[in-house]
């Protein structure tokens, strides 16, 4: 039997989302091995109990073969870190020997099986899903979604599937190597975390399959061309094909307002959102303070400004002088910034 491993990547504050993802993956693919990729340290008093989770395995940022790990972590905000680890985690999971590995963002929920992806990997090494499958029809759509794709990447890296073959492993290794040094939110500099890198993938690797099925990775950025509908037989469709998975990128009121922009006056997508919020609420455990991220602040609790991360990661002298940049007190990076203004 084909061995499929699937993983996601979170900090503790996204654990509830990862649990909803896991619940839906296990529902449609009970035989997959599910990994929780964790780039965080638990809040005091909180312990992750794998026995009571839908995940089978955990892989932590601390497990990754990255030299000067704390220094490397410091160079990333929470989004950058949780995306930067995806390449190394993919490589490590491939090393465990599964036939295929699927990555899904924690804020995705499956609505039916995604077996066609697994079938596509029989003849390809990598499967990617583009943000957009049809040209936008409005100026607003062009500005936000088409130019948005040019800025942030053609493919949405909330999903990637890789076959454990030489080409698949080579693609994973190449991506992981780039993410080690260049997984930053720097749109003017041509980077958007892990995502823009994959624009290069179909050119570098011949067997990259671009999945053009509108049922995969439906989200606010493509909703205007993929209206959600409920069919009489109980199926949920997106753009008239079965909905496979929805990417709930933002579930707060701002996210809801963005969905409104693209829902074209239809309300079905808000039923999905209402359901998702209910599942999130059921999967939210006490003990994790809102917005918790262990690498979000200095030792004394002061939040780390993004500017500090940018300066630190770009200066070898600072990295060499302050090997533990999170420390507070005398002769710390924090005090150096305070003095330098």
């Amino acid at each position, binding site marked *: 039997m084909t061995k499929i491993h699937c993983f996601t990547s979170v900090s503790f504050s996204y654990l509830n989302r990862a649990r909803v993802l896991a619940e839906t993956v296990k529902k449609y693919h009970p035989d997959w091995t599910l990994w929780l990729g964790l780039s965080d340290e638990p809040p005091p008093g909180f312990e992750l109990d794998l026995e009571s989770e839908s995940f089978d395995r955990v892989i932590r940022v601390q497990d990754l073969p990255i030299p000067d790990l704390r220094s490397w972590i410091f160079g990333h905000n929470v989004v950058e870190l949780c995306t930067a680890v995806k390449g190394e985690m993919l490589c490590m999971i491939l090393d465990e020997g599964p036939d295929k590995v699927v990555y899904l963002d924690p804020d995705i929920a499956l*609505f039916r099986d995604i077996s066609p992806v697994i079938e596509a990997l029989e003849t390809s090494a990598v499967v990617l899903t583009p943000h957009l499958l049809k040209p936008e029809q409005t100026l607003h759509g062009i500005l936000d979604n088409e130019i948005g794709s040019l800025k942030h990447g053609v493919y949405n890296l909330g999903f990637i599937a890789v076959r454990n073959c030489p080409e698949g492993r080579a693609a994973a290794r190449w991506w992981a190597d780039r993410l080690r040094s260049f997984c930053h939110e720097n749109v003017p500099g041509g980077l958007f975390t892990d995502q823009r890198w994959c624009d290069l993938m179909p050119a570098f690797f011949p067997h990259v399959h671009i999945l053009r099925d509108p049922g995969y990775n439906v989200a606010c950025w493509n909703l205007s061309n993929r209206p959600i509908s409920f069919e009489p037989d*109980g199926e949920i469709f997106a753009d008239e094909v079965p909905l496979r998975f929805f990417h709930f990128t933002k579930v707060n009121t701002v996210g809801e307002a963005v969905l409104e922009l693209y829902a074209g006056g239809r309300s079905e997508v808000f039923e999905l959102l209402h*359901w998702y919020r209910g599942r999130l609420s059921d999967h939210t455990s006490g003990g994790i303070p809102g917005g918790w991220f262990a690498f979000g602040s200095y030792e004394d609790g002061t939040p780390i400004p993004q500017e500090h991360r940018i300066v630190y990661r770009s200066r070898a002298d600072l990295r060499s002088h302050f090997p533990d940049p999170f420390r507070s007190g005398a002769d710390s990076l924090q005090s150096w910034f305070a003095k330098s203004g």
Partner: protein
Amino acid sequence: MHAALIAAFDEAYYLTVYPDVAAAGVVPLLHYLDEGWREGRNPNSDFDTRYYLDTNPEVAASGECPFGHYVMHGMAEGRPGKRRVSPQRIVINGAADPREQSRHWIRPMPPRLETADALLSTLDRSVEGGGRGLILSLSHDDYVEVVGGVQNCVGDEQRIFNAAGWSYLHLCPAQPLPLLSDQLRPDQFYVQMRLNGEKIGTALLSEVTTAVRTHRDRHPAFHLVVHHLYGFSPEAIVGAAQALRPNSTVAWIHDYFTLCVNPPLMRNNVEFCGAPPPDSQTCGVCCFGRERRNQTGRIAAFFKALQPIILSPSATALDFWRGKIGFNPPDAKVVPHGRIRKVADLPARPNRPIRVGFAGMAAYHKGWSTFEELVRRHRDDDRYAFVHLGMHRAPMSRKVDFVQVSVSSGRRDAMMRAIREAEIDIIVQWSLCYETFSFTSYEALAGGAFVIARKDAGNVWPAVSATAPDQGLALEDEAALYALFAGNALPALLAKRSVYEFTLGGITADYLLEARP
């Protein structure tokens, strides 16, 4: 300053909403451009500064005035200036799992409980001097205290059975619930009782069973009628029925509760779902899905154990229900709640605006939002006057007249009288449900009104088209409805109308007394 910006800014609005600006004596537009937008103030009633900044992060990042961006660019690019929340969205956001909701339903049990002996003597006293037998009737609440369609049916049949010499014992759960109760035995399930319309207290179902069994030794004719299962443990009913062995058991399809815990089958309360398979994706994201899966097996076991005769108020409802319930009932009949016949032509009405009515509860699932939209579109249109006929006034524009109507057991014809007296020309019957009978459609015709119906609203259009095809029109969707009102076709449609007479039926009595005299 750009002329478009000056034109779009509503100075009067700004000064009314922000009296501090008026008091400061500054130029309102300059105030907004300098600081107002940063404070989240709005330049007119159609632009929401905070919303625009939230939905356009690049504008927020640029530090540009959001209203300026909207007027110069956003409007032309199709960006909304204000959040538009549809009635559907409000309904969806309120959708809740009925098990969660039921926590608010819990009420204390009455301190005094009736015993089997006391019940037996009450039952025996009720048939002193003869009596043809006993009807044991079950529905979800107290049909005397609560006003509604099913409750009126139960009240009607109680009086008809009593008049024919039958005793009528009605039971409802002592603890009403918006779902089935937990699985309980008859000696664990409490019921509230009325005998021939009189309240006789609360008791365990097992005590009722004991009393009825003894009573039957002397008065053997006995039928069980299940109107509704809300709040009941079907297992307790099966236990009682197996002990009592009624001559016949009847189960009504007043709504689709036996298909789903949500009787009108409105997915997340927003749209008729057609009862897809309980394990479907749709049920997976519906607030009623989990409870539907919980109850499906219990309902099937109930029907299998009791093998009731199924009675439906319309063929439309029966056909739909049969296609979904998953088994073939041994016997099923259509017993309409009433019959309608033409009695006279409607005299011509003087030249005046067409009076457009909405009959009944101003609820989303009954099509109120559509009626509201119709009013919004024509509030300044001299061709129409809008009227709401119902029990409670809805928050609505001043352009809607309200006529208070309560259809209760003593005033079953109140709605048709009100429609006639208010000289309503059109009833907009835009129910979003798959109606099993649609009293209001019959009441509209009896009141002399023309019925404009949503085509797929269950028995609404079959009822109208079978009775008065010239006095109604079925439309596919809201767009067709709005087009009809925008155009000039209505006066011709309304020209030839009749007054009909609606006669209430005997509900279960129609079937039982005719089938088993």
